């Protein structure tokens, strides 16, 4: 990522990236929220209405618990000193490539 040379250039870049972010966010969030909210309402109807609707909560609980457990593990891992040097391998990999190609 190059350092911007002039202030003017950096503002244009900033505006552009803001618009990019907004545009992409809308493009993703609108359809996915449409899908998710619709499904969630449908799910509540199932849960309320049908006799075996309580069964429908099983996958939700299932996945929520597993996700939470996984999150807890991850947080524990962070506090135990993992991920301190997470960006190193990407540099090493490029250096190795250069060493391979520059030896003949």
């Amino acid at each position: 990522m190059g350092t911007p040379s002039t202030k003017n250039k950096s503002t244009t870049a900033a505006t552009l990236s803001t618009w990019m972010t907004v545009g992409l966010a809308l493009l993703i969030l609108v359809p996915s929220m449409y899908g998710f909210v619709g499904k969630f309402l449908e799910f509540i109807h199932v849960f309320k209405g049908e006799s075996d609707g309580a069964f429908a909560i099983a996958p939700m609980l299932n996945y929520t618990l597993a996700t939470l457990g996984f999150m807890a593990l991850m947080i524990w891992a962070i506090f135990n000193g993992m991920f301190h040097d997470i960006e190193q391998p990407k540099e090493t990999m490029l250096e190795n490539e250069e060493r391979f190609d520059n030896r003949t």
Partner: protein
Amino acid sequence: MSEGSSSPDFPQHDEIVNERLVRWYFYMALTFMLISMLGGLLMAAQLIHWNPLNGIEYLSAGRWRMVHTNAIAYGFLANSFLGVLHWVVPRLTLRPVLSNRLSYFIFFAWQFVVLSTAAGIIIGPSFQDQAWVAELSKSLNIAFSLGAQGLEWGETPFWIDPVAQLGLLLLAINFGSPIFQQKGPMYVTLWYFLAAFVWTFLTYGMGNFLPEYAVPGTSAGAIGGLFIHDLVGLFVTPLGWGMMYYFVPIILKRPIWSHGLSLVGFWGLAFFYPLQGIHHFLYTPIPMFLQYGAVISTIAVELVVMTVIINFIGTVWGATDIFKKNIPIRWFYAGMILYFVTCAQCALQVTMTFQKLIHFTDWVVGHAHLVMFGVFSMWIFGVMTYLFPRLLKREWYSNTLCEIHFWASFVGVIIMFLDLMFAGLFQGFYWASLQPWDVSVEVSQPFWVVRIFAGLTMFGGFLCFLYNLFMTMQSAESTETAPDLENKTAINYQVMDH
């Protein structure tokens, strides 16, 4: 040149990479791509009443439709990935694979698997009425099929399944060895590869044994759904993305934007992808709550996909001029755009609302082509475009033909995808409207005609690639070394940036 190269323990490229095997795998992959495309064209011609070979038993469109899909999955994709693994894994781990002999054995075993799958699918059904097959099926209460087995992507005839399973185990051991020996933090590509070896082995076993021998009915449907989905999600996708995480940075000569974010993508995929299988069978008698669960996790994985896409956009940000000149990079990013389209489409089509309309229609066929050709095959073509000059020590015979290959494939697959998507909508509405069935077939005809031309465009591009490759092999060996070749085609953006 760099000081590092003088360190005694740093290996030579030729010591650890078996270039011959990479070449062999690529040649086999291209052969199967050719076969697969011919099979696809046959089926497309059948649908528009223009199949001159209709009524010939061994060229039946029904059988060749299965050759079409299996040749892509196991012939083209698997062979190309194996070739790529033989290049990437040693260079990333600085170690050779476990055993060179084992590598050759796996190569021949895998070609045996794919060729006998194709032969079994084409010839097997003709001998199904033998008395001994009936006897065996009756006494063991197992439906022995000499031809295809009844699970999509798992059509591999039953006698080949154990060989394929063994091959996958040996493959995991062969490539797992250098990865496990590596010290220190691993690069994300290796994370994906390591997990893919485990997943592919498990997925193949799950899909090719359980629904055939042990589990009937609706539960078999659930397992079948898991298998179809995991085959794309846990075999093709992790190998494909692992490949991208390697080739994009080395061609751009700048590191991936965020290694941490790429690991978020990895763990997200690992958790959510296996949970989605049942979304292939929505509205079946599979319990509704499981279907809802599959829908939820599918929508969740689209968010994970976004992190990956953002990471790659971040990597190329500010250097987008390279798309004009560097064809491999253009293949990669075109594939990624289509990957994003696929996933956005997936988040919508997986909902019950969409499924009512589009399930069983050509929409799904379009989606499948977008994933398998528009994303993964395009990436592999990119890798081949990049690697063949290095493997053959020759420049491409014609850059123009490389360009034609790219544009024909890219435009062709987009036309096919849009065409089949709209065809699917028409079919869905016609079916719901309760008009006679034939009306829905008639209304599909123009779409199917467009589809075969889109297919021919892709096929033409592929033939250009084959011709280009052939002519390149005929030409004189270039005296320039690999990095010089690269500097001619790609500009060093790392330098330009600063």
